[in-house]
């Protein structure tokens, strides 16, 4: 598990403290796998956005459904040059 994943899991644990995150597979839909709703998801994305210092564009928001897609998005956004 890389650092980005660990941070995402830290925030997932905050919204779903009883869930066993070790069993979560990278492609799993987080809503179905952890029974989190749109407000939980919103809470997590606000926290991640602040922690990584990235904005989440509207066209991306709906695509971020799994550990893998969120990790990819965050790593890409953090490494993106400021002017792009």
């Amino acid at each position, binding site marked *: 598990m890389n650092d980005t994943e660990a941070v995402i899991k830290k925030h997932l644990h905050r919204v*779903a*403290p*009883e869930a066993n995150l070790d069993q979560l597979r990278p492609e799993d839909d987080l*809503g*179905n796998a952890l*029974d989190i*709703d*749109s*407000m939980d998801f*919103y*809470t997590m*994305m*606000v926290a991640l*956005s*602040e922690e990584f210092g990235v*904005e*989440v*564009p*509207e066209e991306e*928001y709906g695509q971020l459904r799994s550990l893998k897609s969120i990790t990819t998005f965050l790593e890409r956004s953090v490494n993106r040059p400021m002017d792009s």
Partner: protein
Amino acid sequence: MPSLGSQMIEARLIQWLVKPGDTVKRGDIIGEIDTEKGLIDIEVFEDGVVTELVSEEGEVIPVGSVMAVIDGEDEGEKAKAKLASPPEEPEKKEPRKKREKAATPPEQPETASREVPLHRVKASPLARRVAEDLQVDLSKVKGSGAEGTIHKKDVEAFAKQKAADETFEKELDMAEHLSAAGTGGMRQAIAAAMSRSNREIPHYYLETEIDMKVPLDWLNEQNKERAVSDRLLPPMLLIKAVANVLTELPALNGFWTDEAMHVEEGIHIGFAIALRQGGLVIPAILNADLKSLEETRSAFVDMVMRAREGHLRSREISSATITVTSLGERGADKVYGVIYPPQVALVGFGKIAKRPQTVDGAIGIRPTLSVVLAGDHRASDGHTGSRFLEKLNEQLQHPEAL
């Protein structure tokens, strides 16, 4: 001890957040209580100075008991013991009707509880005979005849309500007993309220499907310009739309008590929030009709966060005049809700999903939302309910005006 609903009897004081000598302002949180609705923050409804903390931390306190004494800055004695009875809302658009109650609906309105000497009670001879048979105190019955004359049907209705209340009380005793035995007070409180609802409220259900393309497209456009923390979510639109419609159809906003509908002036939208540990809470967005969509958004986010952390305020847990439940994107298609007594309506939103719709004479696939209105047939009819759904659709098709 404030009442946070008709079924609440007592609660445990967890901690005081003030001490004698502290100055408090209206809206300040002064303590935390553990109720069957979870941990709730107690708000103070008067400015003043705390002079005495009557209740001790850890103590179980009956509803209505004085927990603390606050001396109002201007009104001295009058402000004492205001914790149990929140005053009327100061903010109002224009009075639709004089508000009869503050945030907490009493079980018995003043007219029924006032003692009147029996010989002055106006009642028909048949009503007196029936009252004697049914052991009903006529001074407590509200007459429907000329000049308040009590008829047989009034006595029978009163006796029926009394029997229902007694059954409810027994269930509450059982709930308390089970709660004390550690089987989950919240579950039992929900059980008591929902049993009462299905026993007493003649529900009618009306449903419709709303084309959500326009509101969702508008939402997406709005969110493009917003930071992730300021996102608008569909439930915020739904709550605001319901509040706006209720300004036009107040018959669905209020309480059924004492065999009559009491329309409430304030529109406080209770929103059902499921808790991960099981059960649900229904805090209210207060005066939702007077809030802008942006204010509704921020109130909603704040309320949901606090509901999940166990920091709801006493006033928002006891004030709802109607309930909205939204199952969200992963929920069922439709929800046929059970009205929370003494409210008279519940609006159930299913999940928004792509379904075939007829648009301009052609069939297309559109995001649609099933809305089911549960109404109390004692308080309103299908005609009012239908108009509600129609107006709700109109509101949602013009999201920019919400």
